[in-house]
């Protein structure tokens, strides 16, 4: 289905896909809240949520009930429109980003030729939402968090794009399905093997792009209370939370698609491989979060400008030379 000739049936498919993606985002947030708290607990040698439901499985459900029931508190002198637009703006663009992901051989909502461009372009909206949230809430912590979010996001987007570009060079296509098709079924024929440096750079930048520890400076509690979402309570906060986990899921899917063979797996190709790989990446992110302390802001930017950016350019250059002179 090309974007230029969207038909009625295509539209219906899109609507269904959007609903499915919303369901996926909500279920993902619930599962990830549970998995993250369990992971944190196990790493700190405690059981995590335990008392609500069997093995604490109902804890995220109860938590979301609590969030729904909370009073929405609006501080004085906020920019009213932007204040409420920001959480929505954080949540809905993520919806669009899931559409071009090839979950399975036939399970792709929107088969666009330049899927990765779409994803990278609209991923910037999350940043804009953070900026607006911080700016609109008339709070110094919010503004500082927003400033950090922007400088961090802008910085880390560059090595991220360059790392993904190396894979695009290698495959010769920006179509996510073709990138998956170019990889084999077994782990040694995945892109992670011929692009280890790109994989590493992408792994670092995806943690930074999703604002998670050790790069969670926009919301560093010890300095900024909660950063850009300091003033949000109830559903506003819940939407930011949903968006954070959805963003995490998205970058994990992109990681699985680009480097880990997407829906291809040793036994039977299908969407289950995409999900297994993406959730393994998610668990890795959780593991990182509970292992490393938060970096300082200058360290954060130094890592990016002094190491990741030159390395990703070097990697891209080598890939280009190899592709050009030796062939794929």
């Amino acid at each position, binding site marked *: 289905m090309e974007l230029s000739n969207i038909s009625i049936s295509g539209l219906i498919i899109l609507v269904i896909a959007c609903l499915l993606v919303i369901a996926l985002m909500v279920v993902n947030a619930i599962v990830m809240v549970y998995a993250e708290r369990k*992971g944190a*607990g*196990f*790493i*700190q*040698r*405690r*059981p995590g949520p*335990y008392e609500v439901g069997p093995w604490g499985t109902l804890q995220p459900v109860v938590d979301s009930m609590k969030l729904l029931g909370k009073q929405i508190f609006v501080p004085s002198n906020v920019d009213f429109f932007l204040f409420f637009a920001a959480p929505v703006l954080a949540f809905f663009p993520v919806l669009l980003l899931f559409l071009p992901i090839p979950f399975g051989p036939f399970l792709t909502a929107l088969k666009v030729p330049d899927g990765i461009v779409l994803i990278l372009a609209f991923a910037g909206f999350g940043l804009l939402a953070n900026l607006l949230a911080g700016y609109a809430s008339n709070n110094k912590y919010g503004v500082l968090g927003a400033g950090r979010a922007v400088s961090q996001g802008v910085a880390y987007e560059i090595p991220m794009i360059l790392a993904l570009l190396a894979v695009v060079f290698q495959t010769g296509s920006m179509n996510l399905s073709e990138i998956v098709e170019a990889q084999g079924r077994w782990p040694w024929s995945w892109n992670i093997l011929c692009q280890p440096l790109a994989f590493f750079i992408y792994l670092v930048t995806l943690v930074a792009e999703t604002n998670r520890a050790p790069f969670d400076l926009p919301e560093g509690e010890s300095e900024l209370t909660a950063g850009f979402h300091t003033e949000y309570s109830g559903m506003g906060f819940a939407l930011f939370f949903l968006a954070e986990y959805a963003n995490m899921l998205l970058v994990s899917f992109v990681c699985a698609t680009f480097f880990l063979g997407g829906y291809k797996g040793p036994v039977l190709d299908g969407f289950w491989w995409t999900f297994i790989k993406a959730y393994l990446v998610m668990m890795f992110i959780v*593991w*990182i979060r*509970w*292992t*490393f302390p938060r970096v300082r802001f200058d360290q954060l930017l130094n890592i990016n400008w002094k*190491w990741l950016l030159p390395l990703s350019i070097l990697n891209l250059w080598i890939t280009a030379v190899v592709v050009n002179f030796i062939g794929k």
Partner: protein
Amino acid sequence: MITAIWDQLKGLYSLIVGMIVTGRYFFAPQKTVHYPRKVVDPEDLAAYRGPLELTRGKDDESRTRCISCQMCAKGCPGNCIKVVKGTEGKLPSTWVYDFSLCCLCGACVEVCPASAIDFSHRLYLVVTSREELVMDLLADLKERVAANPLKPAPDVPAAAGQKAADAPSAGAAKNGEV
């Protein structure tokens, strides 16, 4: 340049070491005690600071070692100790302690010249009013000794009694270091 790169590689290696540590902890047995269903192993309580208790006497276990010197009462930042000297030698007639004011700082335990006080390991203390937290430790000592005498007979050499009485505090010191 070379050293900078080498430093970064060493830094990366340290990150991997950290991840191995947390990864190992992930699969290690948990330390949490699910309280109402299980209780803490008494051995793990050796360093626990519960409300104060009087240590057992040297010859007569139920007799406190306190010499009514008032050091603890004076040194206590919360004014929770009240010691009144009795008529029988230096022995106190009253030794009242208000746990609701105590911050468990340990100043009294440290300052006592006769090693007469120590922290108990009463973890599951529950009361329904503040007044119940004011404890008569002399009575408490008598009760404890009556319920659980360490020495079989009073004519055992004093050294053995000393050892038995010192055992908990020695254990606490050892565990405090870990």
